[in-house]
């Protein structure tokens, strides 16, 4: 028999990967995130849940400085990965994003071949010395994303020709090809059917062996199924953060209870 409690037990052993202290985010005069403090464990799936506009995606995008690309966006406070401040002046956001990969809601493969989609990151970061090494990186990433067997005979065909679920796994392969330490996923299954969703969820379970996975999801059931830690955001506040099994059976805060049980607050 599998011990259902085991994943939670493992989490207790995992060390902190990402640490946020007093994080506040502003879009112009509007404050989107209010004083968020959270420690995200390594080799763990952490889910961010909350109603639309609660700030969960905004906070997720702080972790790889995607908000830098928005002119009016201002981030205050401190976010560290392995103790290093990712907003320090000497940090190159491009290098950071190689270490902190991201997968989006809508699969967004480049208009290139399947091979080139995956090889793109390793190439620009100069991770390989020759074609043989690159081939190996591409194969490993595609295998890691559970896509290899479906595409190995058509690596030179366009990535955009794949089905939605395959495209999303291609994007995951692209993200893992640069050997990241953290994988951020912003509603990665919301455009997928249940079978493609199950494949991605199975994949996420494997990926957490290697790194810290943070996933934003609107599916409460998905958060309950795949994550070991859950954070509930509401109106820019991190309302409750804890073990997923506690959040979904016995949350402490009434706002969390109302949200996960589908009640008007």
């Amino acid at each position, binding site marked *: 028999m599998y011990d259902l409690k085991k994943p939670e037990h493992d989490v207790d052993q995992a060390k902190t990967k990402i640490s946020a202290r007093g994080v506040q985010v502003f879009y112009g005069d509007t404050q989107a995130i209010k004083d968020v403090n959270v420690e995200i464990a390594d080799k763990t799936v952490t889910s961010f849940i909350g109603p639309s506009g609660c700030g969960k995606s905004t906070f997720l995008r702080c972790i790889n400085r995607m908000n830098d690309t928005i002119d009016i966006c201002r981030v205050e406070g401190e976010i560290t990965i392995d103790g290093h401040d990712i907003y320090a002046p000497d940090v190159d956001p491009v290098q950071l994003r190689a270490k902190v990969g991201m997968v989006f809601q809508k699969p967004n493969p480049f208009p290139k071949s399947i091979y080139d989609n995956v090889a793109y990151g390793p190439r620009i970061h100069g991770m390989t010395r020759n074609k043989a090494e690159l081939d190996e990186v591409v194969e490993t990433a595609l295998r890691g994303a559970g896509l290899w067997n479906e595409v190995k005979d058509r690596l030179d065909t366009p990535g955009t020709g794949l089905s939605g679920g395959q495209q999303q796994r291609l994007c995951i392969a692209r993200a893992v090809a640069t050997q990241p330490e953290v994988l951020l996923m912003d509603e990665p299954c919301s455009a997928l059917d249940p079978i493609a969703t199950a494949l991605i969820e199975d994949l996420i379970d494997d990926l957490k062996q290697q790194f810290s996975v943070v996933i934003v999801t609107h599916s409460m059931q998905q958060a309950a199924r795949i994550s070991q830690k859950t954070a509930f955001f509401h109106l820019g506040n991190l309302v409750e953060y804890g073990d997923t099994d506690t959040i979904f*059976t016995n949350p402490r805060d009434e706002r969390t209870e109302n949200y996960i049980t589908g*009640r*008007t607050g």
Partner: protein
Amino acid sequence: MASQHIVSSFDHDLEALQARVVKMGGLVETAIRNALTALETRDLRLGQAVRDGDRVIDRMDEEIKSDAALVLARRAPAAGDLRTVLAVMTMATHLERCGDYAKNIAKRTTVLAETAQSADILSALRRMARAVEEMLSDALDAYIQRDLDKAEAVRARDLDVDQMYTALFRALLTHMMEDPRSITPAMHLHFIAKNIERMGDHATSIAEQTIYVITGEMPDDDRPKGDRTALENDDSGPP
């Protein structure tokens, strides 16, 4: 829970499920009362009615389980809703067992009706049954009102029932030692006492489910136990 679900049919489903378990509780209370009346008044027809009525209780248990399964499948309830559905299923199981005990008491009435029984024993059984009936009723009230104090009080009252059982056990033992001809009826009366004592345990479990629904945690098993008959090593120990 004060606030309502965005999907109003979810509220309806949960209310219907809880209303059904309360109705089932009412049937069980009536069954206990009637079984004891049948015993005291040697009313064989009432005894038979209790036995027949158990089928209705069994069917309600099945209906509650299948309705709860539908709620789980359709709504994927979480947190307080999940605890509510789980508690309703467990409570139905406890009530179904109580129904079986009432039926068993009614069955023994048939044998016991052939001779007159000690008025002391009968009234002690009646008191014990009344106490359990009230525990059941209060446990279900506590559930519906989400009243933690009331649920805790029901839990504490199981001690009284256990003590009543121990006293009855000793009294029956004395009867049997004094007059071996009383052994057969006394054994039946003892089983009836034991059945009532077990119903008290089920009422206690229902109160504990209420505590679980309200707090999210099962209470610790540290309440005092009054039935010490199984722990005693002298001659007065049970068979």
